[in-house]
């Protein structure tokens, strides 16, 4: 067999199951509960770049060649984001969440699945402008060490920051966006003053545990890569991590409806997908 293209889909499903199982048992990364259509596509894309002739042919390489595995995982870590993506969400955070955050002496924020960090810096800027930055700690986590390294560096393509500037203004930005980065050649380095209160760390929503006493959890466009079971696992983790009255902000096309934790939250803003943790009423 030279290509998996014309083979029966059910055979491919077996190969993919075995590959994901091999990754889990060898490295502990659990992609078995990822949204299937997307991860299958990523595997097919990687296959054509890998030099292997079939998905099952990748299994021995994944097991014995750590570098090969790292390359594959890079294909799984795919969410593309931008600063102040969905500007209206940030406006709602300013209007409806910030006033309550101000009532706590110290606030802890968890940005789960921070990828390359665009949202972390967006949030840091928002907190600065709202006078909350100095009493905040932002925990920015991701399963990918490579993504975390990018996030920690905070260096972005200057061209991308033009979109970010537009978004920033729509998001209710109060200053000039260029105050927050230093442009050099084609790159923009985020200002060091934004980084002081950010703690970057490795955390895998598929395997790791509670991240305690959070006042706000931001997890946008991460759960869409999970299947229902893993979504429920992550959402239960968030619910256990939030203080009473804490906020959860999801992606604009992610909903708590039909999940295990929907009865634990009140809707703060339906469109921005901002929820407030209350008493968990058994449904």
């Amino acid at each position: 067999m030279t290509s998996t293209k014309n083979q029966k889909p059910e055979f491919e499903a077996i190969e993919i199951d075995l590959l994901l199982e091999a990754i889990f048992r060898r490295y502990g990364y659990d992609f078995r509960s990822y949204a299937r259509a997307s991860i299958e596509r990523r595997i097919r894309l990687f296959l054509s770049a890998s030099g292997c002739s079939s998905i099952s042919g990748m299994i021995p390489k994944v097991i014995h060649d750590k570098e090969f595995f790292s390359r594959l995982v890079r294909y799984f870590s795919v969410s593309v984001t931008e600063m102040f993506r969905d500007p209206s969400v940030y406006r709602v955070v300013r209007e409806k969440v910030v006033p309550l955050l101000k009532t706590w002496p110290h606030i802890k924020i968890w940005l789960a699945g921070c990828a390359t960090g665009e949202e972390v810096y967006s949030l840091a800027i928002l907190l600065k402008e709202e006078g909350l930055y100095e009493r905040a700690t932002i925990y920015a986590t991701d399963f990918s060490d490579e993504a975390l390294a990018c996030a920690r560096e905070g260096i972005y393509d200057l061209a991308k920051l033009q979109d970010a500037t537009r978004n920033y203004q729509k998001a209710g930005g109060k200053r000039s966006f260029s105050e927050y980065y230093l442009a050099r050649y084609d790159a923009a380095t985020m200002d060091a003053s934004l980084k002081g209160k950010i703690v970057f760390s490795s955390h895998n929503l598929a395997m790791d545990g509670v991240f305690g006493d959070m006042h706000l959890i931001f997890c946008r466009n991460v759960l869409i890569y999970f299947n229902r079971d893993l979504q429920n696992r992550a959402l239960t983790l968030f619910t256990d991590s939030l203080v009473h009255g804490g906020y959860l902000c999801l992606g604009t096309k992610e909903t708590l409806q039909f999940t295990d934790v929907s009865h634990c939250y009140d809707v703060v803003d339906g469109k921005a997908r901002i929820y407030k943790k209350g008493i968990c009423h058994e449904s």
Partner: protein
Amino acid sequence: MRAREIGKLPSSANYEAVVIGASAGGFKAVAAIFDAVPLEFALPVLLVQHLHHDDDGAFAAHLAAVSKLPVIEPCDKEPIVGGHMYIAPAGYHMLVEQNGIIALSTEEKVNWSRPSIDMLFESAARMWGERVTALILSGASSDGTAGIQAIRAAGGLTIAQKPDTAEHPFMPQTAIDSGAVDEVLTIEEIIARITGLRPAIPRRERKK
């Protein structure tokens, strides 16, 4: 590409879904189709129309105003229901999962597009195989051609808008040139064709 079995021409087949891809100049064609699909239409319709990334559901609202059937800009994991029209939200790819739900994704753009028609069509080909009909309408992009090929290879029915009736002929023409389009039709003919599709009996085992 797999040959069709004799006596299993697409006109006699049963269908589970219709998928549509449209880009520049596609709005009028899409609106005409949505306007014409009758209330008793039993199949789900899934549409990728390339949108400006700032579109905040306005496009879906517009279609809802002309459609007799419910028009939905789905959330992630929304179950697919017959007789409903699903519009990919701006900024998200829309895929079909094997258990009949919609998956959204913010993966990188495909063919400079998110949502991408290829992403929807390729996942639909895997989900429904020969029981899906794909339409490719007006556009200035080559998005959709790989998807049309995947649908055709899985045995589904592929239809392109007649290029000289499209505001932008490039997209349907590119699909046709790939050799994977079964029928080249005007919008009126497309409407007649899809409203005449015979729905598959629900839950029946699909022929392998």
